[in-house]
């Protein structure tokens, strides 16, 4: 079951690579949030209530509701054009993402570690790297934030891959940080929208040497 | 002491002999041997004309020039008898004293602010500058050959034995003669007869000097001639007894004068622009001399 979910997650990355409407990106985010919820729920079924609530909060509320809605709001508010307008053609990014996934798979072959099932590892790392790739290949600021969230999702999966979970406090802190940073980024897109006509990163390259 | 007096005496007749030789060579009935001395004596009694632009330097330079030449003469030995001034490395003093006199003469030429004399001064400075290394290397190799560093000891210890040493002697003599010619700005480098200011070296430097000063300068020139003559003489005298040396010395001097005269009447002057190369050749010749000495002493390892 988990395996299926994770594979779906990975596929969503591929879809992200070829999708060309911002709204699709947002939907993908929501989908990934749901998948995360499923995975964590199955993985950590036997843990205590508080932690469960925490996880719920982290996945369902934040990742699959709050952030997508907020993104949607931002897009609407700043009247950002709906096309993603990447630097590189979709086919190329599709190939690159695939390569990334495959190579993470190859790397995972080197691991000799009983406590870790590699599917997590592969999914997480491929999410992280393809997130990085999306950031550097997309033009719009909003897409950067979205890819950042994807990376975060990858991180969550990785933290699931870790057999032993962090102390509660630490977990809380991490959640808080992610939450804050994402919203701060969102707010800043508004600010950027105020000064520059368009949530486009072109205007944001004045500071250079 | 003896050498000093002898040089003084010889210097009186030296130029006369040169002129006489030249006149004979060109089939004229030239002036008497002592004519140049008479000229100088006359000059010494004359009044003088001096330019407004000149300053004290112009006044003092000739005296210092003569003094420097006199001191240089004092350094020279004759056979067994040392010069008045004789110590290890005295030839350094010799060279530098002469340079000091020349320095002031050049300045006095610049003092007149005339373009011609400046020209002469620049040539004089350049040529004597180029001649100095030749002299020093020559003396250095003599020092290497004999193991002494004062004229007297060097010439005393100088022996010509092997065939190579004769070759060396010839080279050394040639270099010395040529240095003498450069220093006195005589034939191959400069021709005192041509009265075209643009082509002269020493004569054009002293265009503005007159009267007593001119006399001093001329006498200094004669002394210089005799001085180099005695150097050449010493090269051959070695440590002969005194009663032989003195006549030999005088003889060689006179011969030298004749040689100069012949040279001047049968050779033509270089182009001014070629002089520099010619003088540099002297340095390389003296280097040859040095290498020859090394060969002779078997110092090659």
């Amino acid at each position: 079951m988990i395996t299926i979910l994770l594979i779906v997650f990975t596929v969503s990355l591929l879809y992200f690579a070829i999708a060309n409407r911002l709204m699709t990106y947002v939907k993908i985010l929501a989908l990934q949030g749901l998948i995360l919820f499923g995975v964590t729920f199955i993985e950590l079924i036997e843990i205590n209530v508080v932690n469960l609530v925490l996880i719920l909060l982290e996945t369902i509320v934040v990742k699959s509701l709050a952030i997508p809605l907020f993104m949607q709001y931002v897009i609407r508010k700043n009247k950002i054009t709906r096309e993603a307008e990447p630097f590189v053609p979709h086919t190329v990014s599709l190939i690159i993402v695939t390569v990334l996934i495959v190579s993470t798979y190859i790397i995972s072959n080197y691991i000799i570690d009983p406590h870790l099932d590699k599917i997590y590892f592969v999914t997480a790392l491929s999410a992280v790297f393809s997130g990085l790739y999306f950031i550097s290949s997309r033009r719009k600021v909003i897409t950067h934030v979205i890819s950042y969230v994807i990376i975060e999702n990858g991180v969550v999966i990785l933290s699931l891959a870790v057999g032993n979970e962090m102390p509660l406090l630490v977990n809380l802190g991490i959640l808080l940080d992610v939450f804050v940073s994402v919203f701060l980024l969102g707010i800043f897109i508004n600010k950027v929208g105020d000064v520059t006509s368009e949530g486009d990163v072109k205007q944001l390259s004045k500071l250079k040497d | 002491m003896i050498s000093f007096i002898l040089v003084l005496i010889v210097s009186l007749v030296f130029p006369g002999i040169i002129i006489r030789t030249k006149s004979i060579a060109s089939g004229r009935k030239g002036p008497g041997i002592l004519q140049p001395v008479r000229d100088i004596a006359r000059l010494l009694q004359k009044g003088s004309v001096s330019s407004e632009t000149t300053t004290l330097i112009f006044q003092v330079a000739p005296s210092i020039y003569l003094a420097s030449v006199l001191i240089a003469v004092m350094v020279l030995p004759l056979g067994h008898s040392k010069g008045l001034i004789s110590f290890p490395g005295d030839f350094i003093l010799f060279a530098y004293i002469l340079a000091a006199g020349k320095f002031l003469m050049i300045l006095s030429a610049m003092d007149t602010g005339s373009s011609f004399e400046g020209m002469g001064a620049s040539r004089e400075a350049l040529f004597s500058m180029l001649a100095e290394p030749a002299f020093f290397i020559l003396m250095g190799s003599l020092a290497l050959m004999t193991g002494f560093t004062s004229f007297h000891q060097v010439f005393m210890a100088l022996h010509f034995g092997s065939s190579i040493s004769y070759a060396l002697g010839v080279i050394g003599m040639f270099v010395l003669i040529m240095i003498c010619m450069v220093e006195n700005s005589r034939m191959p480098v400069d021709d005192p007869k041509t009265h075209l200011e643009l082509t002269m070296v020493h004569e054009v430097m002293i265009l503005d000097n007159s009267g007593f000063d001119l006399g001093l300068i001329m006498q200094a020139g004669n002394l210089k001639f005799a001085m180099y003559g005695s150097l050449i003489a010493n090269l051959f005298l070695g440590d002969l007894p005194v009663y032989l040396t003195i006549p030999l010395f005088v003889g060689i001097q006179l011969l030298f004068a004749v040689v100069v005269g012949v040279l001047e009447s049968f050779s033509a002057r270089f182009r001014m622009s070629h002089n520099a190369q010619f003088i540099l050749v002297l340095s390389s010749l003296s280097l040859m001399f040095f290498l020859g000495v090394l060969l002779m002493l078997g110092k090659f390892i």
Partner: protein
Amino acid sequence: MILLYLTGSVLIALCMFLNTNRRVNRMLIAGFLVLQWIWSVYSLTHKNVPEYIFFIPDALSILMTVTLSIISIPALVHSYDYIYPEHDNPRVRGIYFGSMVVLIMSLTAAYVASHIAVTWIFVEITTLSASALIFHRRNSGSIEATWKYIFVCSISLVFVFIGILFLSIALGDIRENDMQYSILLRVAPSLNTFWLKLAFIFIFIGYTAKLGLIPMYTAGIDAKDKAPSPAAALFSSVLMNVGFVGVFRCYEVLAHTSIHKWVDQVMLTTAFLSIFVAAVYMLKVKNVKRMLAYSSIEHMGIVILALAAGGIGYYAAILHLILHSFAKSSLFLQVGHLYKTFRSKNIYSIGNYFRYNVPGAVLILFGFICITAMPPSGMFISELMVFRALIGSGYTGILILMLILLTLIVWAMGKNIFKMLFIPVPGREDLHVEAVSPYETLLQYLLLALVVYLGIAPPAGFADLIKESIINLNH
């Protein structure tokens, strides 16, 4: 105690946000400084006494905390001189000082934290508070800088977090699931090197954003450029130190493992490349603040180089770090004056500063001497040790290249500095500015004096603290 400190400063920060009265604000600042110093003294007296589970004031943290407390005084005091004569908007002021306090607080906590994840959390908080400071001027430039800073730092911190996760995977092998540094130190030799390598790569690269090395140094430059000078002074000194602390604690752990050599090589390469990049831009930039920022990159490169060289290099690294913090912050504070005088950060429109503000100009002169590590600057001593470490560990080639680069940097920096100090700007000779009172420069002089003093004649206690903080590396 640490909880008292944290809560206290958070409260003060909140009051600052809310309060609009100028005098109250001053009082709050004074109160915070007192609190800060109380904590520093307390940690000094209670060395290595665990605070709850997550904090231990060990030697390194004490050094860093005291450095921070010293620098925070002029930073906060000068904030008034520079920013608030002009537009004094209470709300903006509140946000500014509030985030200043939060920044200092989180830095302190990050130094003291004894749990790798706790360090991470507080570092993240520094990012957020710092971005508020960068945003202070609220023009397009500052927005851009803020945006880049938040984004790059968040990404880098994600890297760090991934690294931490790998570390805990490695821990997973042996049944040890608490990530206190002390425990990590103990168990490190028995861990799986594959995970350790991955962990180090991610943690190191993540922290380069704070530490100011390649690859992630980029956003920090813009931040130091756009932030108000006192904030920039903090960014280029203590905020970089926090990155160093993060790397250093991780390095301590790995120094006991079999991959120590590999780690050294990675750090060596990174550090050298950073110095190179710094040199490249030193020759290029014409903006004073950016120039200073790049010089910070260079110095962090030297520090990490020293760490990688090992031996006496460990000592040199920490000494150099501290001295650099003092020198650089003092320079940045003076640049505030410079900006006030000429209303520009561009070297072409700054000139003959010597005429307008003699003490300031002399300070910049001495600052230049200090920062380029010419004697009598204390940094000369530390660089001397670095050379010695490099020679000792046989990196002579790197040393020679580094010397060439350093010379280039001195040349470039010198050209700009002396242009600003002496040569008047055509058309701006008759510049009328209000004379800066010499007292405003006093604190900066004190900082530079500290650089010289600690370098040449370090008090025994100071040296012992440094030695103790590297005790784990000498084995």
